[in-house]
């Protein structure tokens, strides 16, 4: 382990597949040293720490350390109880009974009870952008301090999976926060860390929460669940927007861990003494989005023509990200990953076919607007290359580079006159079809597609996994075949870790419990 070169390590990480074993597991054999502060050079800082409003990775990375939910993802991204001791689902799949753990303390010393859980859910239904999950709730019941019951109006086969979401997480807040406006809560949670000093745009510190009550029934940490032990005194997130500077900080030892590096920046750290570059999969999936309500991409054939010209290898190289090729909208090895039957719409590289489709669609040089932004260079670079590929097939392309806010607003609203854009989806692919639903409809601006509508209805109503898988295959096929979205790649997360940061486990976010500093 000690002399493992970075390249070997990457191979190790790759072969590990979807279920991440800890490549540093052997380090656990050593006795953990206590104390010290981990310096984490992150690319930006959170704007707020209200879990119910949190969608950005930088916010969530802090929130997952400070808060915990009833149910959360384990290392294999499956739902496991965290603050719940256990749960039961009724026969009809409409009633969910959570037994809460006793003696769990908030960082202010108060014990967590069902009243806190109830307040959390009630507030969530009011303020969170993710409140659609709770739209079908008939009622909440709290028969005693340690029981919480949710009753739905209709069968929802994946309700528990929806509750484990790491985006807008259902983190339990103290009841005192019930009526706090969105984004204005006091940051008090049951997590193993508590919030320390926070200077916006500069740094944020989380400190060991001495009042933390770990889950003793587990052997050790397991994704966001399990038994969490804090060895370090604190973790300091330094916000360093320049990739160059983050790499420099690792080289000089100013930081113990960093993230959000491009492939080329990561390569710079290869062979640097005391630093190990890693690429973590699964992380996100990159897609080209096609606007299906805006001419000329409202024509299915034209969208398909764009899909046919998309040369995935070049798009991946241009993005400068570490990425793997895969056709599916779920990750290999997970329940919803589709087989070869859905692979035929991926990486076609078929200029002749594209030209034939264009002819069929009566395409006559209408301008196709390719929009991207300057803030995310991988998006910009992917689009620049795609634009060249489209031109090669005789399409008239206008490249429109804006900033991310404009780009994102346009993606959401469908305005701004774009036809083709790109973005990455990080949690959706991980969590399954229910998390995909909003995106699939929203970004390509799909209206009146009965294939999708019917398949989704079937999906929610199927208690049996095989039926749900079948429904999902239909959904995915429609999205890819109809070229509402073009799958580009499974993108890894490039990070670097100091060799004396021990016990680190690869996960889609960086987790700091159970790590320790060997100094």
């Amino acid at each position, binding site marked *: 382990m000690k002399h493992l070169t970075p390249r070997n390590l990457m191979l190790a990480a790759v072969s590990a597949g979807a279920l991440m074993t800890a490549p540093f597991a052997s380090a656990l054999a050593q006795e953990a040293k206590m104390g010290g502060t981990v310096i984490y050079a992150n690319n930006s800082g959170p704007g707020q720490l209200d879990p119910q409003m949190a969608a950005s990775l930088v916010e969530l990375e802090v929130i997952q350390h400070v808060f915990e939910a009833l149910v959360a993802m384990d290392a294999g991204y499956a739902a496991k109880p965290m603050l719940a001791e256990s749960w039961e689902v009724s026969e009809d799949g409409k009633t969910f009974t959570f037994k809460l753990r006793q003696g769990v303390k908030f960082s202010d010393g108060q014990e967590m009870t069902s009243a806190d859980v109830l307040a959390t859910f009630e507030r969530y239904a009011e303020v969170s952008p993710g409140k659609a999950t709770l739209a079908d709730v008939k009622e909440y019941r709290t028969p005693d301090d340690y029981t919480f019951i949710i009753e739905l109006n209709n069968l929802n086969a994946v309700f528990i999976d929806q509750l484990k979401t790491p985006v807008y997480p259902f983190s339990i807040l103290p009841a005192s926060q019930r009526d706090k406006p969105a984004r204005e809560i006091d940051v008090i949670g049951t997590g193993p860390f508590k919030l320390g000093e926070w200077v916006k745009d500069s740094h944020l510190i989380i400190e060991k929460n001495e009042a933390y009550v770990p889950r003793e029934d587990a052997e050790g940490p397991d994704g966001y669940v399990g038994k969490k032990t804090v060895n370090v005194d604190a973790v300091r997130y330094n916000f360093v927007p*320049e*990739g*160059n500077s983050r790499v420099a900080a690792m080289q000089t030892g100013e930081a113990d861990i960093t993230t959000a590096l*491009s492939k*080329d*920046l990561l*390569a*710079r750290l290869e062979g640097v003494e005391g630093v190990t570059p890693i690429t973590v999969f699964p992380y996100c999936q990159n897609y080209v989005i096609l606007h299906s309500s805006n001419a000329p991409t409202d024509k299915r054939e034209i969208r398909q023509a764009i899909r046919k010209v998309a040369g995935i290898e*070049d798009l991946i*190289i*241009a993005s*400068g990200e570490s990425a793997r090729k895969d056709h599916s909208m779920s990750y290999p090895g997970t329940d919803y990953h589709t087989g070869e039957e859905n692979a035929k719409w991926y990486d076609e590289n078929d200029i002749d076919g594209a030209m034939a489709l264009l002819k069929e669609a009566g395409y006559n040089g209408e301008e196709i607007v390719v929009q991207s932004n*300057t*803030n995310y*260079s991988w998006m*910009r*670079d992917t689009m*620049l*290359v795609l634009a*060249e590929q489209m031109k090669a097939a005789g399409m008239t392309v206008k*490249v*429109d*580079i*804006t*900033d991310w806010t404009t780009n994102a607003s346009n993606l959401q609203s469908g305005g701004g006159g774009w036809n083709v854009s790109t973005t990455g989806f990080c949690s959706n692919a991980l969590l399954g079809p229910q998390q995909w639903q909003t995106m699939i409809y929203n970004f390509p601006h799909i209206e009146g597609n009965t294939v999708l509508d019917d398949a989704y209805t079937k999906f929610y109503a199927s208690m049996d996994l095989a039926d749900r898988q079948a429904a999902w295959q239909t959904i995915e096929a429609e999205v890819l075949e109809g070229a509402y979205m073009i799958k580009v790649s499974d993108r890894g997360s490039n990070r670097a870790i100091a060799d004396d940061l021990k016990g680190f486990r690869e996960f889609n976010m960086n987790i700091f419990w159970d790590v320790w500093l060997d100094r």
Partner: protein
Amino acid sequence: MTDQTAIQSPSTMTTTAPPPMPSRSRVLIRKLWRHRSFRLGAGIVLVIVVLALLAPFITDGSPNKMSLRDRFTPPSAEHPFGTDNFGRDIFTRVLYGARISLWIGFASAMLAAAGGAIVGMASAWFRRLDGIIMRIMDALLAFPAILLAIGINAALGPQVTSVIIALASAYVPRMARIVRAAALVIRELDYVDAARVSGAGATRIIFRHILPNCMAPLLVSVTFVFAYAILAEAALSFLGIGPPPPHPSWGNIIAEGRDYSVEAWWIMLFPGLAISLAALGTNLLGDGLRDVLDPRLKMEQ
């Protein structure tokens, strides 16, 4: 040497007309040519302009042509400045970038001069407006040009034209001040009075008498604004609010190359040198113009 008695000296009271002089512009050109830094600066700028104009003939004419198999090629005979992360030829991009950067520099300097001339003239001519206009100019002057440019450019959206408008607006106050000062002096001179007495209209006086006489200081500041604008464009691009990619402006090439600054140093080295050289040439040229045209302007820039 400064024997300043000429005016009081009785013997010069009936000074005869000075001997005929060679035309003013010819004298100026000769003086400029004799000015070492002007020669050097003009030479540098000329070379850059010629290279920019000839870009389609020197290169294969496609600054955006990608060749992902050839990415990060170090400088070689085939790619004198190497290639970038798309395998685009940096030499071609820098040459085409010269067109954009020089155009932005030139257009914003001209626009700033025109705007400054209008505001400065208005201020000098309509004395009632003078106070208000100059107060506003002073306030704008207090803002660093780059901040103003960021604000204006952000509002106009990422386009070459917005960069030009933003930079021009940022430098209008400086120009206006210079023009106003020159115009105020000239306004009080006898021949302007004479023109006024002979019934010449305000426009005529402004265009025939005042404007030509403001040209010297204006021309000098135009060169300096040109240099600033090239630097400012690069800074705006670096912040991600310059001319949008894939425009190969020098600032953009650097901004796109900064992630590879260690491994592929050539991506950001050559456009950086190009910017420095262009700004250096323009500054040298401006120094020469200033020394020859308007020695009293020293302090302004």
